[in-house]
């Protein structure tokens, strides 16, 4: 028995994949950022490829079908062609696949918090307790000491998670992480501005806008505006965005007692949006700083043709690995 216990209690090295692929998708297609781990003994990785797979919708489009399913054959071919079999995968969900809510942190043991959050979040979802997967991030303490702690609880249907995992396995990749766009943007910002303690970020998408307030690298406020902005948007639309930014700043100040610097970070930067952003700057009396990934991320120009759009989320996930690596080095 002693021999057997020695055999099986011996510590094995963690089975580390040679690299990972970050997958982000929308109705237009699938963005892939492939990273290969360096053989220097660290967990650091370098970007080796950025690709985009167009989504072709046939006449027999099935609304029940997951977007990834429609591109699984192309993704499999890509993985095989590039020799990425056995790589880990990090999937960034599309905005309609999950729910994120700021709620009170349950008073429970750490290993029971997720289960308690499942109950708390049932008011916002309709797929049942047993079919709910929950993760959460802690928020900074509120200004009032007698207030309870808050968390951002994120949940998605378990069957959807399993469906995504099965699709990933079908392509020859290994399911490793399923993340959300908000976290990708946060990681991306933290990578580009590692020393910024307080920031208000505006992300402009063709379908929606999102205002995020970060404090010491952690998410403090998330507000989504169901409004796509373009060159055709009128002042009324930009005024609405301006109002949401102001509300977010006020909320962070009231609840968390954090004073916001007079600067608004915006990405992606597009010339077509400059007029609107100038309107916000004038309306709120704050400076606007555009985040230009082409200038900030050295590998964007090398690989990507559309690095200002969907690739942002994938690059954010790559940045997370870099941040984790740097934190790991800092601790050691």
């Amino acid at each position, binding site marked *: 028995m002693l*021999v*057997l216990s020695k*055999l*099986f209690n011996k510590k*094995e090295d963690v*089975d580390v994949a040679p690299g990972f692929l970050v997958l982000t998708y929308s109705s237009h297609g699938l963005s892939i950022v492939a990273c290969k781990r360096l053989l220097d003994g660290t967990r650091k990785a370098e970007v080796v490829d950025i690709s985009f797979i167009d989504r072709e919708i046939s006449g027999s489009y099935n609304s029940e079908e997951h977007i990834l399913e429609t591109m699984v054959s192309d993704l499999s071919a890509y993985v095989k062609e590039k020799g990425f079999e056995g790589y880990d995968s990090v*999937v960034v*969900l599309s905005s309609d696949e*999950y729910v994120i809510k700021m709620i009170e942190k349950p008073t429970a043991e750490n290993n029971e918090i997720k289960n308690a959050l499942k109950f708390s979040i049932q008011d916002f979802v309709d797929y049942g307790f047993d079919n709910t*997967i929950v*993760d*959460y*991030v*802690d928020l900074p303490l509120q200004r009032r000491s007698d207030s309870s702690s808050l968390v*951002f609880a*994120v*949940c*998605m249907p378990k069957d959807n*998670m*399993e469906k995504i*995992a099965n699709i990933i396995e079908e392509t020859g990749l290994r*399911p*490793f*992480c*399923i*993340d*959300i766009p908000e*976290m990708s943007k*946060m990681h991306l910002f*933290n990578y580009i501005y590692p020393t910024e303690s307080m920031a208000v970020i505006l992300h402009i998408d063709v379908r929606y806008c999102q205002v995020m307030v970060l404090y010491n*690298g*952690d*998410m403090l406020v998330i507000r989504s505006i169901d409004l796509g902005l373009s060159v055709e948007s009128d002042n009324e639309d930009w005024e609405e965005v301006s109002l949401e930014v102001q509300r977010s700043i006020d909320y962070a100040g009231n609840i968390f007692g954090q004073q916001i610097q007079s600067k608004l970070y915006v990405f992606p930067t597009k010339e077509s949006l400059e007029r609107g952003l100038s309107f916000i700057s004038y309306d709120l009396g704050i400076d606007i700083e555009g985040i230009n990934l082409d200038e900030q991320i050295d590998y964007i120009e090398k690989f990507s043709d559309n690095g200002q759009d969907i690739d942002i989320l994938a690059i954010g996930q790559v940045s*997370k690995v870099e*941040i*984790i690596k740097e*934190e790991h080095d800092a601790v050691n």
Partner: protein
Amino acid sequence: MQSINLYQVEIKEKVVLCLNQILQLGAVLVALLFLSTLYELYGYYSLQKEFNSLNANQKDLSLGLDHAQKKVVSEQDKKEVASKVSILQNSLREKEQMYYTLTTLQHGDEKGFHQYLKALSDNNIPELWLTHFYLGTNGSHISVSGKTVSPNKIPELIKKVGEHESFKNIVFEVFNLEKEDDDSGVISFKLETIQ
């Protein structure tokens, strides 16, 4: 740093064994196999010993069985014996009955003839005399014969005898009356109960 991962499944870690570990594991298995074989052999030896012992016991029991079978009588003999026993039991019952009757007679038991004889002798009726009587066992059948010169004395006899305790429940149901042929005027009569 805040981080979210919604891929939450129990991932079983693969147990990867190197060549050295495989050899060690093989050696342990061989050792276990060897010990198991030794144990099996010991078990076989024990069972063989027990088998021999049982064989010896079987032989002894076979001899004893043969001896016992010789002592056991055949079925035919059993039937003959049973028949003889039945005959002897019947004979015994008859002897016992006879013995009982004789003993009763000898000791003048109330259940014998004494009470009937006494009842008949207690009634002395002039011009009437008894010539013959028969008493069955315990008064099961009674027959009284006699003669008289006055036939009207016969009912007196029946009445007096009937008054006696022993004849209380006895009813004479046969009554024969016959005149003698010698012109002496004597009439024979017979009283009898039906069996």
